[in-house]
């Protein structure tokens, strides 16, 4: 009887410790932003002293109307970056406020499409990547359409984000229009290329450019081949063939 109750207490104790460990690890794993993170950073010796005068503005920005815990977490990264570059406080606040708007909108788009069952840690890198893409030439509507296509194909968010990141990289080196990007993005998502291979198309544009092919011609070659089930091999052979003609 005595042995039975000791075993039971031990079991309960073990379960409590286990539960505690799980909750601690979950908090740690989710890496949720806390106010003290900001305070700690503002008090740091390496942080420019002028930021201290704007403490309440920073707090406002990090806490008011925040729709997802991902947002302050990612804003914190931008804050560290701005601080390291010694960006003046007003400019930093302005930049952070624009970034907050962008991040909130990205989170809304992602959730609106249907990618809802993601943990904060899973969502964070995707929101960050999309925000970077949106700082370039991609528009919100384009990103939304690409993610919708990805969701429609029952792909994970990683695939949709890879397509957007590739389009962003291509937008930095070409003169293509938004319509072209949409065509290219849809072709990528409906192709047999693995998501890890999407970014190779950036280098394909460099090769085509070096062969004096127009950006729109390179895009046409890629889209037509991907639509017919082809991949990098067929694109490479077609670009090389067009090169030999010139």
């Amino acid at each position, binding site marked *: 009887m005595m042995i039975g109750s000791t075993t039971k207490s031990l079991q309960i104790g073990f379960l409590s410790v286990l539960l505690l460990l799980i909750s601690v690890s979950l908090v740690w794993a989710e890496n949720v932003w806390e106010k003290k993170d900001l305070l700690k950073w503002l008090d740091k010796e390496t942080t420019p002293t002028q930021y201290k005068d704007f403490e309440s503005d920073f707090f406002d920005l990090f806490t008011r109307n925040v729709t997802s815990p991902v947002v302050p977490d990612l804003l914190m990264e931008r804050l560290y970056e701005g601080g390291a570059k010694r960006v003046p406080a007003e400019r930093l606040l302005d930049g952070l406020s624009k970034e907050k708007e962008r991040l909130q909108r990205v989170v809304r788009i992602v959730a609106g499409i249907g990618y809802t069952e993601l943990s904060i840690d899973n969502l964070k890198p995707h929101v960050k990547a999309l925000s970077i893409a949106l700082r370039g030439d991609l528009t919100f509507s384009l990103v939304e359409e690409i993610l919708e296509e990805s969701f429609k194909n029952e792909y994970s968010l990683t695939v949709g984000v890879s397509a957007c990141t590739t389009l962003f990289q291509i937008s930095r080196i070409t003169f293509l229009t938004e319509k072209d990007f949409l065509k290219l993005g849809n072709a990528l998502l409906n192709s047999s290329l693995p998501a890890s291979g999407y970014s*190779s198309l950036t*280098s*394909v544009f*460099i090769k085509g450019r070096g062969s004096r092919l127009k950006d729109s011609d390179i895009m046409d070659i890629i889209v037509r081949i991907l639509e017919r*089930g082809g*991949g*990098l091999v067929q694109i490479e052979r077609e670009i090389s063939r067009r090169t030999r003609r010139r």
Partner: protein
Amino acid sequence: MKKTKIVIVVILFVTLAPFVAEADGYVGGGSELTVSPDFTPQSVPNLFVEGGFDFFFPVGENWSFFLTGAGEFSWFPITGDFGGKAYLSGDATYRSQSFFSRLTVSSSFDHTSWQKAPYWYQFSELYLSLDSSRVSYYVAPVIVWEIDENIHIPGIEGTFGLAADIQTIVLNPEIEGGIHFLPEMERRTFYGSLIELSWYPGVPFTLSSSLGFTRNDSTETETLVQGEEPLPVNTYINLFFRPKISFLITQKLDLSFSPPLDFMIMDHGAIVEETLQSTPEYKLYFGPQIEINLQVSKIFSLTLDSGCEFIWSNSPSEEGFSWTTTLSGRFSF
């Protein structure tokens, strides 16, 4: 009568407009300067203009037709010489999920005022491939017809290869061979093998290179050294390594660098001071070349192309160095 012609032209334009929507044309010009080893201009500067066009006609889901042509006219103002070259090529392509075929017919022409007769080259290729998304097996039989200084040289060539995508690298081993028929039962044959590697790392950079050899044999002979027996010409082994890197400096500025290396071994002996040595003649060719392209606007680009050629040989008359720089502008519309 005039009205009828206009109507016909308008109807033709309206009919063809949807197909020629993807047409692309260009015109450009530039000048070239060649410098010898002692850094004095070896040949006079020349001016050239070039132009060309591409028409792409997609028809339905699987078919497409491609027509391309280009021409270049060069003028050497000091000597008054001139040269011209042109080509016209058309192909019909059928592409399905796993099968691809293309029939190409092409013709090119090259002539300079100091040549006796123009050089013509006709080429017909049937390219067939079986494709999956990561691998492509292909075979391409070719019929060629050369006219060199009024001598007709028909020939048959063929290529068989495989291209495979391994992550960001495309590997392409290939074997090729052919036979060309010369007058009086003379023949030239060749066979070779190469492996091409292209790397697409996903950043604004790309590397491609090919490594291989060709063996050329010919029944033709020529007296290379006075008083000696005629020697086989066009008979040699060529080993080559041709890398090329391209990268983007800014959105408008891209750069390519290629340092090709070729090593040729001729079967006949080396010729030193008009005497024939028993050792085979060898020739090492190194031709680093740099090309900088500036996309000034959506329709205009400037290209600076500069390259050296170094040739080392145990036949001193074959040795040499030259440097050529070309600046050209191109309008694409």
